[in-house]
């Protein structure tokens, strides 16, 4: 299948020829009756899994089913923070696998995902924070993940808008900085994977909701009932974020997830003022500046489970209180938009990328509030798991059974907040 290759030269050529002749990024195929594998969920994780299945495992008769449209779910709703400075060995391996893939993703996909390793700085406001972050720095160093400790003056040097005065409610006592962390353009990640997967023959089927999972006499997955007809496939990978519980229930599989609204907001666009990503878990402030100039701000989850894709305003104002105290020069900025997405949260705040008790059914879920950063790595090991019917060494610990067997990967306790 021929596809247009993007380059600086092609951009100049197309602009000289008045931008006529750009092709659509992916086809709009009708679903076939039978595929070798089907991914449910056309977000970054699902599209990426399809791409790696086709690219690295030679499975090209595959489809991605998306209930809505590509880039309309959590992939297009998050605050695009990328980092890998997690405490536990299992998490560090998984997230750093992802960061390494991020670094060359634009070249691999021939699509500019605008990955920018501008540095992620996590602020410490209490003695407990200092101890926890220093422990993270040392644990990360043992795992080959960069993370360094900054005192308040160094933090201010790295991020000049930061207020390090000691007269605020939660003064900045220091910070942990991962220089390889940063941001990427979230829509471009979905579109880039969709385009690259499509070019390898993957059918991307939008507006196609899964309504049932058929199983054969042996209990294995046989077919999916969808709003666009029955689709047969011996392998089904579910990558449905906040709706994973609903999809898995169709096959009678129970996963330890709760779905919560997570909100984010952006300010009016301003000139470049914010050079990095700053996170404060303690007072719930997550902020960076997009290339368009908007300050991108993440709020916390709402208190209750919900599927509404909206949350309460007080969750946003709580975050803005913290932002205004840490960055006083943002106090007069107006907020432009806010929105919510539904995130699937596990009890230990680590994901599940695993086989399920149903043969042929695989699940990639539980990314909670921090799934975007893991998109390439998660998709890569999920594709491996589907293709070989066994987990990649990196995702082997991230099973459903770890909750039964007591091998939690307790990043919830390590970070003391959702992340």
């Amino acid at each position: 299948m021929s596809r247009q290759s993007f380059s600086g030269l092609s951009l100049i050529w197309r602009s000289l020829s008045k931008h006529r002749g750009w092709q659509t990024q992916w086809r709009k195929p009708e679903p076939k009756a039978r595929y070798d594998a089907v991914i449910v969920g056309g977000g970054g994780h699902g599209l990426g899994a399809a791409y790696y299945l086709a690219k690295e495992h030679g499975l090209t008769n595959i489809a991605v089913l998306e209930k809505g449209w590509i880039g309309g779910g959590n992939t297009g709703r998050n605050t695009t923070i990328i980092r890998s400075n997690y405490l536990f060995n299992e998490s560090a391996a998984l997230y750093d696998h992802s960061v390494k893939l991020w670094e060359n993703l634009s070249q691999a996909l021939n699509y500019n995902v605008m990955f920018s390793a501008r540095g992620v700085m996590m602020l410490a406001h209490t003695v407990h924070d200092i101890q926890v972050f220093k422990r993270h720095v040392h644990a990360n160093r043992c795992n080959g993940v960069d993370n360094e400790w900054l005192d308040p003056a160094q933090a201010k040097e790295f991020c000049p808008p930061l207020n390090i005065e000691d007269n605020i409610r939660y003064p900045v006592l220091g910070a942990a900085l991962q220089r390889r962390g940063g941001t990427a353009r979230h829509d471009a990640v979905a579109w880039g994977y969709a385009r690259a997967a499509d070019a390898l023959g993957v059918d991307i089927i939008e507006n196609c909701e899964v309504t049932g999972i058929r199983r054969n006499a042996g209990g294995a997955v046989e077919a999916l009932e969808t709003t666009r007809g029955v689709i047969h496939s011996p392998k089904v990978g579910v990558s449905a974020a906040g709706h994973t519980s609903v999809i898995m229930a169709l096959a009678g599989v129970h996963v330890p997830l709760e779905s919560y609204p997570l909100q984010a907001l952006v300010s009016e666009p301003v000139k470049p003022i914010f050079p990095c990503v700053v996170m404060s878990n303690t007072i719930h402030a997550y902020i960076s500046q997009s290339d368009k100039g908007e300050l991108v701000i993440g709020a916390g989850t709402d208190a209750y489970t919900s599927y509404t894709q909206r949350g309460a305003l007080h969750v946003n104002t709580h975050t803005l209180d913290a932002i205004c105290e840490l960055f006083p020069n943002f106090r007069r900025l107006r907020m432009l938009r806010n929105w919510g997405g539904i995130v699937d949260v596990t009890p230990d705040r680590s994901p599940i990328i695993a086989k399920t008790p149903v043969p042929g059914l695989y699940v990639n879920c539980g990314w909670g509030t921090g799934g975007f950063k893991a998109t390439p790595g998660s998709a890569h090991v999920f594709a491996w798991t589907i293709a070989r019917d066994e987990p990649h060494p990196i995702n082997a610990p991230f099973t459903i059974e770890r909750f039964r067997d007591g091998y939690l990967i307790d990043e919830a306790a390590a970070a003391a907040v959702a992340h």
Partner: protein
Amino acid sequence: MLLIDCPYCGKRPEIEFNYGGQAHLARPQQPSQLDDQAWAEFLYMRANTKGVYAERWRHSRGCGQFFNALRDTTTDQFLAFYKRGEAPPALSGEGAPPAPRERSP
């Protein structure tokens, strides 16, 4: 913000309350009899229903009481509030959502 009708105090804003998760989860009567799977079910598995969900709230910045509510998680609309220890009220009438289940299928 949700407006929550505490059975003891009346309608109050959500910020006076803490969420308590899925309701009607009883601690096992014979803990020593449970195997690992049963413990995992009790500790970690929640229904996470898309639809009518029975859940606990605590009026922690008010009377301090726990109570239960039925809420439609597709609209965030509350359908009933009732005291702890009581059975969830039956929802009837045209267009009423189905009664809650302890577990999703």
